[in-house]
């Protein structure tokens, strides 16, 4: 029992801060924490580098304020300069068309490399094997997916951008071809039937 005549102990800052050690979650919290963390660790094992950020911070900072107009102007000038320097009037115009059965697809140069992506999905650089002229492509799960996605009953608004799990490769123009993972409009022919998209 404390002596009532004794001077009360002085409270120090350290005494108060020590109270913070007693703010802690109960044991039931840790069961949930372990479960969630375990899932995240396993996900990290499957995907060791983690998701790629949609927009990097330097790009975000460029896209804010006046700097974006200067940057966009510089990028546009650069693009124009590059186009003019590589312009060849005799080369066929690169069009983004699906390589599908029944169409007269020109032979593909096996050495050519896909160097540019037309949509927002980066395309991996890869050599494409040569196909003899007019060889029909086998019907695959990707083809079926594209057919379903392009079906006018499923997607009545034909102007909408339709994602496709298959990459559509353009004709070879001086060793450069373009790839797209989405479609906007045009005609899509498969197995002898034509449908608009």
């Amino acid at each position, binding site marked *: 029992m404390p002596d009532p005549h004794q001077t009360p102990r002085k409270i120090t*800052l350290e005494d108060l801060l020590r*109270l*913070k050690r007693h703010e802690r979650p109960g044991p039931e919290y840790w069961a949930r924490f372990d479960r969630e963390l375990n899932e995240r660790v396993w996900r990290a094992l499957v995907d060791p580098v983690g998701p790629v950020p949609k927009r990097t911070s330097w790009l975000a900072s460029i896209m804010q304020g006046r700097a974006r107009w200067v940057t966009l102007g510089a990028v546009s000038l650069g693009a124009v300069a590059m186009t003019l320097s590589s312009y060849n009037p005799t080369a066929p115009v690169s069009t983004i068309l699906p390589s599908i059965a029944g169409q007269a697809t020109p032979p593909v140069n096996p050495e050519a490399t896909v160097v540019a992506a037309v949509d927002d999905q980066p395309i991996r650089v890869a050599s494409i094997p040569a196909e003899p002229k007019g060889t029909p492509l086998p019907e695959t799960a990707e083809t079926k997916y594209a057919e379903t996605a392009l079906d006018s009953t499923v997607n009545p608004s034909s102007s909408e951008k339709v994602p496709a799990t298959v990459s559509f490769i353009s004709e070879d123009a001086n060793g450069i071809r373009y790839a797209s993972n989405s479609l906007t409009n045009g005609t899509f022919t498969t197995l002898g039937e034509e449908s608009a998209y």
Partner: protein
Amino acid sequence: MSRLFANTKSLISTHPEHAAEAEVDLALVQRVQTGDIRAFDLLIQKYRERLYAIIYNLTSNREDASDLTQEAFIKAFRNIRLFKGDSSFFTWLYRIAVNTSLTHLKRSRLRRFFSFENLDEQVSQSELAEVLADKMQTDKPALIKELQEKLNEALQRLSLNHRTVVVLFEIEGLSHQEIAQVMECSEGTVRSRLHYAKLQLQSYLQDYLR
């Protein structure tokens, strides 16, 4: 691998308990580095509460603390192959936790709110609570709740560096040398920040220190 860690002993903490812990941790880290993922679970079990406490005391928000603690462990897991044993594992892990928290606090400084953990029963039965309740002439439950809020507010008024030093030294009990390793600064800087932070806290909490 063992050659890689040959000089670790001389670099780890001078605190005897922590030095012993560092030996055990090193063995676990080496197991994880050679592919034994289960060893990482043991490290999680060992450090989850301490890491959570650091992050909670830096953020004063238990939801953020929970998420950031997990994030810190994931970062440690992803980068564990880069751990060379230049410092003890726990200072490396604490550094990840502190940096993760500071990055979060800098990003969200305009939309911050507090959510406090429960204080355990020991506090209401402590001598400190008795003395304070007597001094302030209030009942203990109300006093403890008020004190918890004031303490958190006072910590949040400190700059991030000052807050980190106070949390690591006064609440987590790290030495100046260990804090210097975690914060990658000199021990002199740690001492100076601690001194200044405590002066500020004394001023914010003077009502309780009379």
